[in-house]
């Protein structure tokens, strides 16, 4: 390891420690914001793990997020908390494998539409089950977890996700993903088992997203399908990853932090026009910065140096 790498790891560790102590110098509102930011940084990074290199745009984020939250709502009174998280991760994994096996053959817009439909399907299934079998639509979550506990869990998950993304980017499976993203025919002829690589990454990404949902669930206290399966979560995750650049390690993070703060401000100040502004922003980002801010500044930087 050279001096530069050591310095980078040192800075990363210092930032992480500073963030871990955030509850001691931020008020309740600040902690609320930090929970949201940590949640979306994790969601966007996990989303980009799979969708960045393969260019399979997934709108299933909220399907897994909601599964995580609902698992906590259903199991929190009958199982100890760590087991509830494990159960949520396991359910997310099983759903991801089933969905992945049946859909990763779809390409382009078909995959986008399928994943969007999947989130709606799961929401409707849960609603149907709750209304017809349990007889109540909403559920309460009574867990003895304060905002700090939720924040620390999310922070740890965010760090682990970034570490995984870093490791994958340097590993053989990372190269396989890049090759698949560029040309699947070449990938197959190089000996890459495309279906297996895609499935593994889709499942990993889905499990992390499920955990975000599970960890955030106690914040709501009251949970119903319309809240935890809100498609806006999928769209926000997508737009954050795209803004920063889904093919860069720090891209989703750099997209998630400013956009989360912006959305927070917009929803407080323009509650009635929030959706319209969100839609416009979405269009603007896709048109102006299709490869993300990081790639854009890099291009400017290169052009500047070439002169």
């Amino acid at each position, binding site marked *: 390891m050279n001096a530069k790498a050591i310095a980078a790891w040192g800075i990363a560790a210092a930032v992480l420690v500073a963030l871990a102590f955030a509850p001691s110098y931020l008020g309740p509102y600040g902690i609320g914001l930090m929970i949201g930011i940590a949640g979306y940084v994790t969601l966007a990074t996990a989303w980009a793990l799979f969708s960045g290199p393969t260019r399979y745009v997934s709108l299933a984020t909220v399907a897994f997020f909601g599964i995580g939250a609902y698992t906590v709502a259903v199991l929190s009174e009958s199982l100890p908390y760590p087991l509830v998280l494990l159960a949520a991760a396991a359910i997310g994994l099983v759903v991801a494998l089933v969905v992945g096996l049946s859909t990763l053959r779809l390409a382009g817009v078909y995959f986008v539409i399928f994943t969007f439909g999947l989130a709606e399907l799961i929401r409707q299934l849960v609603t149907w089950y709750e209304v017809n079998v349990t007889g109540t639509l909403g559920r309460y979550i009574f867990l003895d977890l304060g905002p700090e506990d939720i924040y620390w869990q999310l922070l740890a998950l965010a760090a682990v996700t970034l570490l995984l993304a870093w490791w994958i980017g340097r590993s053989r499976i990372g190269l*396989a993903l890049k090759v698949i993203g560029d040309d699947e025919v070449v990938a197959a002829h*190089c000996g890459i*088992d*495309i279906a297996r690589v895609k499935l593994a990454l889709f499942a990993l990404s889905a499990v992390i997203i499920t955990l975000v949902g599970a960890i955030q669930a106690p914040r709501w206290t009251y949970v119903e399908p319309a809240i935890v399966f809100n498609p806006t979560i999928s769209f926000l995750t997508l737009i954050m990853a795209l803004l920063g650049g889904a093919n860069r390690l720090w891209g989703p993070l750099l997209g998630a932090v400013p956009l989360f703060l912006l959305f927070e401000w917009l929803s407080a100040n323009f509650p009635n026009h929030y959706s319209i502004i969100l839609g416009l922003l979405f269009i603007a980002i896709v048109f102006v910065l299709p490869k993300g801010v990081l790639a854009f500044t890099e291009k400017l930087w290169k052009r500047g140096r070439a002169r």
Partner: protein
Amino acid sequence: MTTLLEISGLTKQFGGLTAVDGVTFSMDKGEVVGLLGPNGSGKTTVLNMVSGLLPPTRGTVMLNGETLTGLSPNRIALKGVARTFQLVRILPSLSVLENVVAALAFGRRRLWGTVARDEALARLEQVGLADRADETAERLTYIDQKRMELARALAADPAVLLLDEWLAGLNPTELRIGIDLVASLGERGVTVLLVEHVMDAVRALCGRCVVMNAGKTIADGRTADVLADAEVVRAYLGAEHA
């Protein structure tokens, strides 16, 4: 000589069109065979079926006595079949080096790290691209992209190499280098099946040629004999020249 690749009764139908119709031939180890024929005669389709890109309608492909037919392209690649494409296929966002490492990391040898880097550089050296290893692949000229594609195919350490018009579009100097390169592969025991329209290259490289027309094999034999064959001349130039 032992038979390495055995193609028998290979047939491909696209709806009502029979693109390849019962093609049968075999190749010995280290042989360089030309697959000739007019445009649309089904040569590329034969290569596609050997590499697994297209499943055959009927017929089999065997490598070393093992059936390749029905396997997915990645399994076939691991059995030792590598290829280049008629319309060159690069990995545009990756570096030239990574394009070659891709074949090393997931191929038969599963190399990674500095070993893979050194090996990739050696393959790039072989095609004259070593000094451009760290450039993005899409910045290469068309000819250099073809070279890189060959380096990638070579990196797979293939038993059988399928070249689909790899020499097309080269200038005379490059053609000379390209021919020497392919000839050296044959000498090292790589079995090469090349689809080619550059007749000078075919005469220089191929001891034997298989000629196709309208999906069928119309000739198979020593290059000089095949090129003099009346039916082959008719297929290429029309009846009045035969």
